[in-house]
C-alpha cells in the first residue's frame, strides 16, 4: 500500500509541471482570443468592452512570438540544443509569406506594373526571377513556408549532428547561420527587396489587410496555430520518441549505447522546430505588414532564448507565457523609457538564470508542490 502511494505521488509531482497545464492553457487561449475578437467586432470605441484594432494586431504579434518561443523550447528545453539562430527560420517563413503578399499587390503598386513588384521595377529588372515563380498561388507559398526552412534545418542539422557538434560550438554555428542570411538578404541582387525588405501589402486571399475583420481573422488563425503546435508537441514529447529526446539531453552517449541513432532524432526534432518557427514568421508578416533582413539579426534570436528562459524551459506552456510577458513588458517599457529596456531585459535574464533556473512556470509548480506537501503533512498530523 505504501509503495502504491509512493508510486502515485511521485508520478503526479514529476508530471504536473509540464504535462497537465497544456489543455487548460489552450482553453484559456481560445477564450481570451474570442473575447478580444468580440470586443473589437461588437462594441464601439469608448465602450468599456471595446478592444482596439491596434490591440488585436499587437496580440496577434505576441502570439507569433509565442509560437517562435515554443519552437526554441522544444529543442533547447527538451533536447538541450541551444539554437541562437531560430530567427532565421522565422524570417524565412516570413519572406515566403511576404513574397505571396507582394504578388497579390498586382498593378496597385507605385509603378503600376502587374508583373513585377515595385523594387524590381526600381532596379530596372525586366522579368520575375525564377525563384519568384509560383508565389502568386497561396498554396504554393504555404508549401514553401514549411519546405524552405525545413530543408535548411535538415541540411544544417544533418551536417552538425552527424559530426557530433554540440554545446557552445553548435550555438555559435546557428548564430553564424542567421548572420550569414542577414548579410545575404541585405543585398539588392538577391531579389528580396534588399534593405527595405517586402512591404506595402494590400490583401491576403482577397481580404484587405487593413480591414478590422481580416485582423481578427489573422489573430484567430494564429491562436489556432499556437494551440495545434502545443498539442502536437505535447503528443510528440509524451511518446517514447519524446522520452528518447529527453534521454539524449541528459546523456547522449548512454542513448547511443542503447542503440538509438541520436543524430537522427536531433535532426528531425530540429526540422520540426524550424517549421514551427517558420509558420510563426508566416503569420507574423501579414499582421505586422513588413518583413526585412532585420529579422535575421542575431540579436533577435538571442531574445527568443531569453523569453524561453524566463517562462521556463522544458515546459511547453512556459515558453509561451515567457514570450507573452516579456513582449508585453517590452511594449510598455519602450513607450516609457526606451533606453532602459535592453538593460532591464539583460538584468531579468541574469536574475532568472541565477534564482529561477526553471523559470516562472517552474516556480509556480514548485510552490504548488510545497503547498500540497504542507497540506498532506497537516492531514497526516490530524490522522495521528
Amino acid at each position: 500500500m505504501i509503495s502504491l502511494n509512493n508510486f502515485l505521488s511521485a508520478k503526479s509531482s514529476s508530471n504536473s509541471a509540464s504535462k497537465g497545464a497544456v489543455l487548460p492553457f489552450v482553453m484559456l487561449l481560445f477564450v481570451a482570443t474570442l473575447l478580444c475578437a468580440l470586443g473589437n467586432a461588437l462594441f464601439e470605441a469608448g465602450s468599456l468592452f471595446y478592444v482596439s484594432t491596434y490591440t488585436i494586431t499587437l496580440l496577434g504579434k505576441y502570439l507569433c512570438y509565442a509560437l517562435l518561443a515554443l519552437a526554441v523550447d522544444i529543442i533547447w528545453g527538451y533536447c538541450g540544443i541551444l539554437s541562437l539562430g531560430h530567427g532565421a527560420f522565422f524570417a524565412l517563413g516570413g519572406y515566403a509569406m511576404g513574397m505571396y503578399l507582394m504578388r497579390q499587390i498586382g498593378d496597385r503598386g507605385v509603378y503600376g506594373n502587374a508583373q513585377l513588384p515595385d523594387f524590381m521595377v526600381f532596379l530596372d529588372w525586366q522579368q520575375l526571377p525564377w525563384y519568384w515563380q509560383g508565389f502568386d498561388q497561396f498554396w504554393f507559398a504555404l508549401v514553401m513556408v514549411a519546405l524552405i526552412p525545413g530543408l535548411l534545418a535538415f541540411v544544417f542539422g544533418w551536417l552538425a549532428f552527424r559530426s557530433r557538434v554540440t554545446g557552445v560550438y553548435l550555438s555559435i554555428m546557428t548564430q553564424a547561420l542567421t548572420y550569414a542570411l542577414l548579410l545575404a538578404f541585405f543585398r539588392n541582387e538577391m531579389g528580396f527587396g534588399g534593405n527595405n525588405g517586402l512591404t506595402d501589402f494590400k490583401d491576403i486571399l482577397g481580404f484587405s489587410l487593413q480591414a478590422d475583420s481580416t485582423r481578427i481573422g489573422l489573430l484567430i488563425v494564429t491562436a489556432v496555430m499556437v494551440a495545434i503546435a502545443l498539442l502536437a508537441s505535447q503528443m510528440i514529447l509524451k511518446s517514447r520518441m519524446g522520452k528518447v529526446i529527453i534521454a539524449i539531453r541528459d546523456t547522449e552517449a548512454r542513448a547511443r549505447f542503447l542503440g538509438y541513432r541520436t543524430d537522427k532524432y536531433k535532426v528531425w526534432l530540429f526540422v520540426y522546430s524550424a517549421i514551427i518557427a517558420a509558420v510563426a514568421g508566416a503569420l507574423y508578416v501579414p499582421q505586422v505588414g513588413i518583413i526585412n533582413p532585420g529579422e535575421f539579426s542575431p540579436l533577435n534570436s538571442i531574445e527568443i532564448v531569453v523569453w524561453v528562459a524566463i517562462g521556463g524551459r522544458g515546459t511547453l506552456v512556459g515558453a509561451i507565457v515567457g514570450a507573452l510577458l516579456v513582449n508585453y513588458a517590452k511594449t510598455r517599457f519602450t513607450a516609457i523609457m526606451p533606453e532602459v529596456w535592453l538593460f532591464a531585459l539583460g538584468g531579468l535574464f541574469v536574475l532568472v538564470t541565477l534564482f529561477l533556473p526553471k523559470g516562472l512556470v517552474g516556480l509556480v509548480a514548485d510552490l504548488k508542490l510545497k503547498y500540497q506537501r504542507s497540506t498532506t503533512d497537516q492531514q497526516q498530523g490530524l490522522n495521528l
Partner: protein
Amino acid sequence: MNILAGVAELRHRDQVWSFMQEDVPVDISHQVILYVEGLNLSFDGFKALNDLNLYINDGELRCLIGANGAGKTTLMDVITGKTQCDSGSVYFGQSHNLLTRDEAQIAQLGIGRKFQKPTVFEALSVFDNLELSLKSNKSVLATLFAKLSTEQSDRILQVLETIGLKAQSAMLAGSLSHGQKQWLEIGMLLVSDPRLLLIDEPVAGMTAEEGERTAELLTSLAGERTVIVVEHDMEFVRSIARTVTVLHQGSVLAEGSMDQIQNNQAVIDVYLGEGQ
C-alpha cells in the same frame, strides 16, 4: 559505384550479400563470441592498446583486471564503437565486424554496456529508463508511435523485481542513491536482452551486501549470456570469476583461473614491482 558493386555482388550466390547482412545471426559455431585480434591504439604516442588479443567464449563470465591505464576501459570503448582503433580486428561471432559499425548499430547487435560512473537518464522515471532500454525498433518513426505491449511491461516489471527497484518504479532516476543507480543501469542492460554484456566496475560505491547481490546476479547471467566485467575489487573478482585476464600496458599479461593468476610469476613481478 555503390550500386554497381551491389549488382556485381548479386552474382556471387555462394556469399552472403552485404546489404542483407542486417539480420545475419551471430555465428558462434566455434564457441567463441568475441574475437579481438592485434588491437593497437595510441593517444599522442602513448600506447593505450598494444597488440591486444582476446577471445571470449559464448556464455562465459570473464573478469578483466589490471592497473590504471592498463587499457581496460579503452578496450571496452573500442568494442562498443566509441573509439576507433589504429589497427586490428574485432569480430562479434564470426561474421560481424564491429569496427565498421557505430555505437547504435553495435548496441542493436546485442552488445550492452555499463559505464564506470552510473549513467542513467536522470530526468526520466525508473520505469521509463527501462522502457527505453527494451529491445525494440529504435528508429525515429517507430518510437513516435510505439506502444508498450503487455509482454514488454511484464518484462520491465520482472527486471524491476530482479534489481529490487519495484517500489521506486515511478521515481525519477536522478533521485536514486548511487548504488540504486548502479542497479538501474544493470537493469537497463538486462531488459535489453543482450548477448554480450560489458560491465565496467559494477560494485564501485556499493555496500558489501549490495556487492554480494551483484555478484550473485552476474553469476546467474553467465551461461545464458556472455559477461565481461572490469573490476578493481579483488574480493569481488574472486567471488565471481572463473577465468581472469590480466591486462598490462595495453596487452594481455596473463590469463587463467584466479589461483593460477595469483601464482603467475609475471603478474607478481608487475604488481609487486610496482608496489615497491
